[in-house]
């Protein structure tokens, strides 16, 4: 039955190919889009892993995720997180392996004849190095003593170091940051980039020095980062930080938190919400294109049934039951549809590989996506083949044999 259906289709090759084009394009779109979304998700995950460190969580006035305007306005009305609170938190927490605090601004950095404008200036506690979000390639990080003494030392990001001289050559040299002379003590290991945004163009100075010389005048707000002790879960440590910080900030029992805690997990989740939206769009496109493809198949199958009226009559005379005729035309519809599905899968796979090569996204086609694509195309063939097949089977054999 399938073989004879395939033989009929082969002899009408052009029409068969054109008919399956709808499904082909639909499946191509689905497979490549799903591949891209999967790639995007892998990419996001790898970026978070490489840049943030999986267990570090951050506390700040403003949410690190995606907030609406109202939430942002409310955050703005909260009191700043101060260095003092950060220090207290560091002293009081029992589950924290390291607590650090950060602030930032922008300034021009120059060295010798070279000068870079709009450099990210980071005011960092000496404990930054313990949180493991930064490591040093050349030289060293600044010490807590230097922080307390407001020493004019700095650590440069690798891109900035390259712009001003050579990274290995920078330690020991003097640079001017925002009009103040600093001595370079180290160059950080490259962090790479997140979402195409370079992370190695900064100059880091001890927090106290930053506060005295480089901070924006009205900005006392810091971001706190906590690395839980080994053996303590992120959730446990996060909960302790929350309770301790509430006490430090003197929040009444019934009041809501007036700070945000952002975990990598939380950021991944909010990213995944965005990606889920993209997936829904993908499914929508898939549904529409498969619908269009299905209608195309139905259309051609109806034409084919009419053209082959006499063949249907002959087959009935030779002993085909109605259900044999139904089976024959359904088989044809499914073959057309699956053919489009297979070609679409190959085309989508090709596009995904192309995207993988040409973009930073590690795009890939999962076996599940491939399986679904084929399953859906077969289903489309079945669904849209039913009516033409039923029409063929319903024909009166006498009329069908007389059909010119």
């Amino acid at each position, binding site marked *: 039955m399938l073989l*004879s259906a395939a*033989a009929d289709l082969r002899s009408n090759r052009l029409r068969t190919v054109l008919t399956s084009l709808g499904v082909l394009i639909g499946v191509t779109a689905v497979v490549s889009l799903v591949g891209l979304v999967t790639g995007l998700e892998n990419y996001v995950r790898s970026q978070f892993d490489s840049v943030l460190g999986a267990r570090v969580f951050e506390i700040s006035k403003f949410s690190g995720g995606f907030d609406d305007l109202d939430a942002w306005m409310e955050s703005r009305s909260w009191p700043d997180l101060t260095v003092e609170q950060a220090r207290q938190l560091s002293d009081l927490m029992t589950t924290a392996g390291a607590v650090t605090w950060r602030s930032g601004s922008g300034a021009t950095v120059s060295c010798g004849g070279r000068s870079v404008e709009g450099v990210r200036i980071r005011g960092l506690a000496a404990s930054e190095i313990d949180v493991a979000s930064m490591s040093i390639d050349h030289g060293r990080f600044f010490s807590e003593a230097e922080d307390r003494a407001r020493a004019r030392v700095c650590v440069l990001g690798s891109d900035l170091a390259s712009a001003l001289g050579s990274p290995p050559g920078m330690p020991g040299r003097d640079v001017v940051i925002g009009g103040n002379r600093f001595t370079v003590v180290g160059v950080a290991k490259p962090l790479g980039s997140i979402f195409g945004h370079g992370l190695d163009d900064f100059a880091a100075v001890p927090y106290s020095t930053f506060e005295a010389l480089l901070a924006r005048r009205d900005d006392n707000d810091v971001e706190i980062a906590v690395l839980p002790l080994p053996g303590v879960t992120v959730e446990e440590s996060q909960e302790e930080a929350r309770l301790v910080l509430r006490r430090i900030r003197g929040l009444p029992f019934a009041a809501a938190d007036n700070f945000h805690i952002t975990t990598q997990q939380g950021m991944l989740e909010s990213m995944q919400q965005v990606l889920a939206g993209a997936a829904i769009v993908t499914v929508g496109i898939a549904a529409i294109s498969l619908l269009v493809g299905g209608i195309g198949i139905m259309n051609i199958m109806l034409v084919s049934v009419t053209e082959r009226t006499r063949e249907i009559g*002959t087959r009935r*005379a*030779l*002993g085909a*039951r109605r*259900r*044999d005729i139904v089976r024959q035309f359904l088989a044809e519809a499914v073959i057309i549809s699956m053919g489009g599905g297979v070609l679409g899968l190959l085309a989508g796979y090709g596009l995904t590989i192309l995207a993988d090569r040409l973009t930073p996204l590690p795009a890939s086609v999962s076996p599940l996506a491939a399986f679904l694509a084929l399953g859906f195309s077969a289903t489309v063939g079945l669904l849209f083949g039913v009516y033409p097949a039923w029409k063929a089977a319903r024909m009166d054999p006498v009329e069908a*044999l007389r059909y010119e």
Partner: protein
Amino acid sequence: MDGAVPVIEATGLRKVYSMGEVSVEALRGIDFRLAKGEFTAIMGASGSGKSTLLNIIGCLDRPTEGSYSLMGRQVETMMDSELAAVRNRFIGFVFQTFNLLPRASAAANVELPLVYARVQGRERRERAMEVLERVGLADRADHRPNQLSGGERQRVAIARALVTRPALLLADEPTGNLDSRTGAVILELFRNLHDEGNTILLVTHDPGVAQAAGRLVRIRDGRVESDTAG
């Protein structure tokens, strides 16, 4: 011959087509009997009802009234799928326009009834080759209909009708689309098949063709006008 079950036993066949208000009576009470091994021709002008009779005998249609048994089986009350099985098992159709599947080889065309009889692969192929040999076209088995002459096509169609070893060969104007010389070859083939014991019912409006049969039934206005041994 009388002791055996007749191939066809039909009594009081009536067929009324109603198209809205108007109803047309195509058959007005036909009694017809065909014994095993007979070669009978049915003649009649167009509109005489012979096509309707042929459709009922071929189990493609049911009579409005009357009873029809084919090989002792009461046919007029059968369901659609049972009729399909009866056509497949007992009847071999030969059409005026051959009705071969254009995209299938001669052998595949001949195999088609066996597909519906659920005969599988190798046996199917062997039986198809056997009947193609019988009609002298074994060497054309892999040709498509458009690579065959009209006479060859009809011989393929006859092979297709024979492949199920049917109780009745039902031929509707089998020479109508052929030139007279080719037609004569086909008629000769029918005569030989008759000699080999096949039961043949042939519908025609050509008196020359009708002469080939041993018995001639004339239909007129939905009734049997005459029934004579030739």
